[in-house]
């Protein structure tokens, strides 16, 4: 139990993802599973890569060398669920973005969103998406919609919420069993579940026994743009130094590691 820097509320858990970049092969299964789970509409012809909705977006990056030394890495980027001075929470003029004190998850309230997009300008990870178009599904496909997730309307911002509906289902299951808190084994995100390489792990970063917590403490783990001080809860891992540099891990820390050999 600890107090949140933003709201002063009590956080029971601090859920986050740890993504192993050395395992990720850029297949995009995480992005697809995320879209299906969260009722993200399929892109239609007018949509391009700059106006589409992808709560989980896979970036491709290279080490800048030529063959045979050329290497590629894929960065799956979702909302980083910042914990401290969360850029998007503080800027929203009508409190449509908040941090759930029970999970540490940064949530968007589409029904309250004005669509001013100030949060998108504030987010350094470009992990927020605006509904430029009316959400539509091809005939028949609407039957595949997840009944636990609301569909968002045109003109509002949306983003990853670590599969909030799944967290609620796990909570409901715990309540039915007379437990106060959920069993961590009952809650995982669609991206983590779908990844064929098991590169994504969800867990309570404050729980020493969780796999995610252990992985986040690895010396090769880092967070994107760590120096901005936003305390994100999405960790990345790679044994390759150039990948960590590319992720803008703390350069001083990497250099001290390098000097230690």
């Amino acid at each position, binding site marked *: 139990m600890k107090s949140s820097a933003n709201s002063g509320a009590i956080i029971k858990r601090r859920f986050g993802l740890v993504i192993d970049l050395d395992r990720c092969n850029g297949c995009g299964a995480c992005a697809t599973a995320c879209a299906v789970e969260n009722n993200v509409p399929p892109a239609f012809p007018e949509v391009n890569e700059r106006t589409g909705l992808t709560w989980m977006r896979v970036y491709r990056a290279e080490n800048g060398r030529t063959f045979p030394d050329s290497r590629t890495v894929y960065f799956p980027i979702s909302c980083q669920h910042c914990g401290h001075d969360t850029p998007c929470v503080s800027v929203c003029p009508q409190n449509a973005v908040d941090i759930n004190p029970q999970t540490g998850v940064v949530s968007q309230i589409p029904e309250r969103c004005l669509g001013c997009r100030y949060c998108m300008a504030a987010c*350094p990870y470009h992990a927020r998406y605006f509904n430029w178009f009316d959400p539509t599904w091809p005939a028949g496909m609407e039957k595949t919609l997840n009944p636990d997730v609301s569909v968002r309307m045109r003109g509002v911002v949306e983003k990853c919420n670590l599969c909030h509906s799944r967290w609620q289902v796990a909570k409901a299951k715990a309540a039915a069993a007379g437990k106060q808190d959920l069993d961590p084994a009952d809650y995982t995100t669609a991206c983590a579940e779908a990844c064929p390489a098991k590169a994504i792990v969800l867990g309570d970063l404050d729980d020493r026994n969780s796999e995610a917590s252990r992985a986040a403490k690895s010396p090769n783990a880092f967070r994107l743009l760590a120096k901005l001080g936003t305390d994100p809860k999405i960790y990345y891992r790679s044994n390759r130094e150039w990948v960590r540099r590319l992720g803008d891990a703390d350069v001083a820390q990497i250099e001290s590691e390098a000097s230690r050999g």
Partner: protein
Amino acid sequence: MLGIGLFAIGLCLIKGLNQTNMDNRFAFGLWIFLDLTVIALGAGAFFTGFLLYILRRDELRAVINSAVVLGFICYSGAILVLMVDVGQPLRAWFTFWHPNVHSMLTEVTFCITCYLAVLAIEYAPIVLRNRQLRKVPSFLVFEFELHKVMPVLAAVGTFLSFFHQGSLGGLYGVLQGRPFAYRDGFAIWPSTFFLFILSAIATGPAFVLVTTWAVSKISSKRLVQPSVYRILAMVSGWLLVTYVGFKGIDTLVWLNRTVPRTGAIPAQFYAWQPFGTWVLFAEIVLFGLVPALILIAGARRRSFALQLTGSLLACAGVALNRFVMTIQTLAVPTLKFEPFMLYWPSWQEVATFLAVAAYGVILYSLSFRYLKLFPHERDLQQY
């Protein structure tokens, strides 16, 4: 222009913001950049009011009515565009119902709304001075009563305007996730808060000078004494010098302390063409220091050509600053593996703003035709 613009506005409201070329990266575009510019130029209204009613510079009574109308046009036009720019305009009132007191945008919304109301009240006596309306006794009494409270309104307007000009700067200065925009500051306010106030009050009088000259040219009438132009140029020039001084210090602090702390490298910001270091030079020197010196020299030498040149450059400078803060901030990548991107506005975005410009010209022309925008106009025609 108005017709095409209204059609474009209709498209954006009915079909959605997919009619624009904004995207998930360029969440802000032409509209926000121009909104910030016209609001800065509209500062001429409150600052002229401040100089006249609070600092008692009575010579400025010659342009105060015109300045108020210009301010009203700038602010109402900006709000009109904002209503098209947001995805859910019908939810605008949510900001008053669920305000986030930590957000600079909340402060901007509150102040702009209140100030527009103040401007509307300040506009009222100008309208009521119309010869036909003066025949109604109750209007005459109402106008008289309004005049008694005008200094109070000017003070309220000044306070609100100072605050929201600052908050508009604060919008960018607080973005800790955007090292290009993020600034250190004083207490809860980033330096951009103060710099936006300074740049707005420096260019507001210059804009009043430019518009007064333009109206004078178009109507082929002398509207104000040359001394009024000189005062506006002098005020604008010295404030611009102050602004450039603080902007220079702020840039040095930003480059040497703020940016390195965020892990970014300042040179990277200017590595993307066309946004090279020339932008910084143009912002501070070419459209900052140079017009400041021209304005002061123009006022001292009584050269109207210099006063006008300096004013035009100063207005362009404030537009460049707002462009840099809005567009360049979003263009510069934050993650090392993401590309640099550019954005061009769609015709709907351009047409929407042209409609607002047309609305401004029409409202100003009607005010000029039927109201007493320049009290000395008639006297000056006799010479």
